[in-house]
């Protein structure tokens, strides 16, 4: 699903990441499409197991056991099925990635500086001295004090926030066009989370790098992103500019997500969880994957919700796409009369 944008930096079309297991084929990502435009911050939200991290790793070809099909275009380069060497040249140089836990993601036995310089030298033909200077420059750019001394430190000597800053410095050391940030703040203290998000936003603006921010936290999306892709069971169920999604969400799933966020200004005491469990990725339901948990499926005639997969269609605004069989007017009505007032 995608609003047509010919200038897109990254185009993902009908991406499928399937893992053969003894219990059957796990369809972690099953027909995902979205675009990333240059310089924008795109949020990808979803519950655990919605396939958001799997999709992020698939872009860089980091799955070894998976069957990845579909199309991933970076400019005019097709990444699905690309040669190992072609992908390797792209990793870190054009598309970089940072991960959830910066402690386990940094090598415990190499200094921060060595790990940064290595990332630079593998793509740029420079001597050790130039790489070192670049690494120190990046460390101070991400706000690490006494960067020259931090260069020789080991990861365990840093705090969690500092480690994630170092990871970001390492990811951006070759000026990539795209940064994939996989839950970059989940393992951090709340006070540090905001700093790291601010840093990612600042650096993206400064360098013009686009960011795909994978998160389960709609609050992070609201604060940081320009557009958002909502994933459910390996597919994009709704995508829109951030303002549009929060003002007029167009799928019952997104309503459920919004209803389960705690709010400081809420007058009502109880949060509304989404009932039921996400579907098994081995045995996805026919039709809309959210239908078994959806309180509105019965309003659609002919059991279409459980038999027919809804296509991503424009809903409300031209750049707002949603997969839902309910007529757009009904959804707008339900949102304004039932859902929004209760939030």
């Amino acid at each position, binding site marked *: 699903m995608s609003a047509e944008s010919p200038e897109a930096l990254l185009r993902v079309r009908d991406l499928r990441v399937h893992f053969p297991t003894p219990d059957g084929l796990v369809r972690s990502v099953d027909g995902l499409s979205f675009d990333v435009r240059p310089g924008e911050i795109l949020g990808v939200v979803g519950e655990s197991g919605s396939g958001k991290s799997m999709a992020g790793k698939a872009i860089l070809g980091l799955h070894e056991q998976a069957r990845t099909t579909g199309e991933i275009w970076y400019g005019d380069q097709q990444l699905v099925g690309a040669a*190992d060497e072609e992908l390797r040249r792209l*990793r870190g140089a054009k598309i970089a990635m940072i991960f959830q836990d910066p402690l*386990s993601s940094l*090598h*415990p036995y190499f200094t921060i500086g060595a790990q940064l310089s290595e990332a630079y030298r593998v793509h740029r033909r420079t001597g050790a001295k130039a790489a070192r200077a670049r690494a120190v420059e990046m460390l101070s750019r991400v706000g690490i004090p006494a960067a020259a001394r931090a260069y020789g430190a080991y990861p365990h000597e840093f705090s969690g926030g500092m480690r994630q800053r170092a990871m970001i410095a390492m990811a951006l050391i070759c000026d990539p066009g795209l940064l994939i940030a996989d839950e970059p703040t989940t393992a951090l203290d709340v006070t540090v989370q905001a700093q790291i998000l601010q840093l990612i936003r600042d650096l993206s603006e400064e360098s013009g790098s686009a960011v795909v921010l994978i998160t389960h936290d709609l609050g992070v999306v609201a604060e940081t992103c320009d557009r958002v892709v909502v994933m459910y069971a390996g597919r994009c169920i709704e995508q829109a500019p951030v303002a549009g999604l929060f003002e007029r969400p167009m799928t019952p799933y997104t309503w459920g997500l919004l209803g389960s966020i705690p709010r400081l200004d809420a007058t009502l005491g109880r949060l509304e969880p989404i009932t039921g469990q996400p579907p098994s990725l081995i045995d996805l339901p026919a039709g809309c994957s959210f239908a078994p948990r959806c309180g509105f499926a019965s309003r659609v005639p002919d059991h279409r919700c459980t038999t027919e997969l809804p296509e991503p269609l424009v809903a409300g605004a031209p750049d707002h796409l949603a997969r839902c069989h309910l007529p757009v007017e009904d959804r707008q009505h339900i949102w304004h009369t039932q859902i929004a007032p209760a939030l």
Partner: protein
Amino acid sequence: MIRHIAHRLLGALGVLLVVSVVTFAIFQLLPRVTKVDMAFYYTGRNTSAAQAAAVAERFGFDQPIWTQYWTWLSGIFTGRELGDGVSTVHCAAPCLGWSFRQNRSVTEMLVQAFPVTASIVLGAAVLWLAGGVATGVLAAARRGSLFDRGSTVISLLGVSIPEFFSGMLVIYALTAGPGWLRWYSGGINYVPFTDDPLRWAANLLPVWICLAFLIAAVYTRWTRAAMLETMSEDFITTATAKGLRRRTVVGRHGLRAVVPSVVTLAGLDLGALLGGVIIVESLFSFPGLGRLAYDGITTKDLPVIMGTTLFAAVLIVVANVVVDACYAILDPRVRHVS
């Protein structure tokens, strides 16, 4: 760091003291060995009981055990005068006792035997470390490949074929086998390195291969498992995501993470083996510590048994301290904590 090492050394001394007590006690308290029996070991069975008793008295076998222990222990530091009734010999420090079977100081025997064992073990260690670790890394990097499965089968053979069997095959093939294999028709004999380095190496080679094959198998399986675990670590994903070549990811980031545990394993194995490789040394008739201990046991040469046991214990304790120090050098997290 220095405090840490001092602390460890002090602990090691304590352990050695306990080991010396236990070693001494075990051989003194053997229920079927009487004091007079002990004297017989020195004088021979033909001696009359009265003569044996006299010898026992001279050796101090009739004194309380703790006095005997103290004499033995202080002998290690100051040396002792020992007599067999006919003459008196001076056993210089470190005196671990006197073998009257061979009429030599045990220390001297250990000093003579140790280079043989060290030649066998250190040479074999080079082979098993290089072979075992390299095979393990490659097998893990190409998991499920023909190489991986082949190395699994071969290392399974290595683990399950005892060295006295493979060793006999090697000896037979090289000394009495078909003509094209009979490279050692003159037999495989230990030649000291200082006499002829080339013949030293040539004669040790079959021993090295025999011992290394057995141990390399363990290192292959172990390195493979450790590498597979490491390759699923997050920092390996990071290394790949940086755009590093597969060779660098496996050979630098993966292998580096496995090094401390391989060094630990190797250090402890070296410590244990340097104390004597009984089966291999006996098989090839190399006069090392293992052979010395074996001969000591079969001839009931008590001071030799105690000497080799204590020496082997010292090596294991030293190996533990060295491994600890290596760990602190190899793992920056340990380095900084200590």
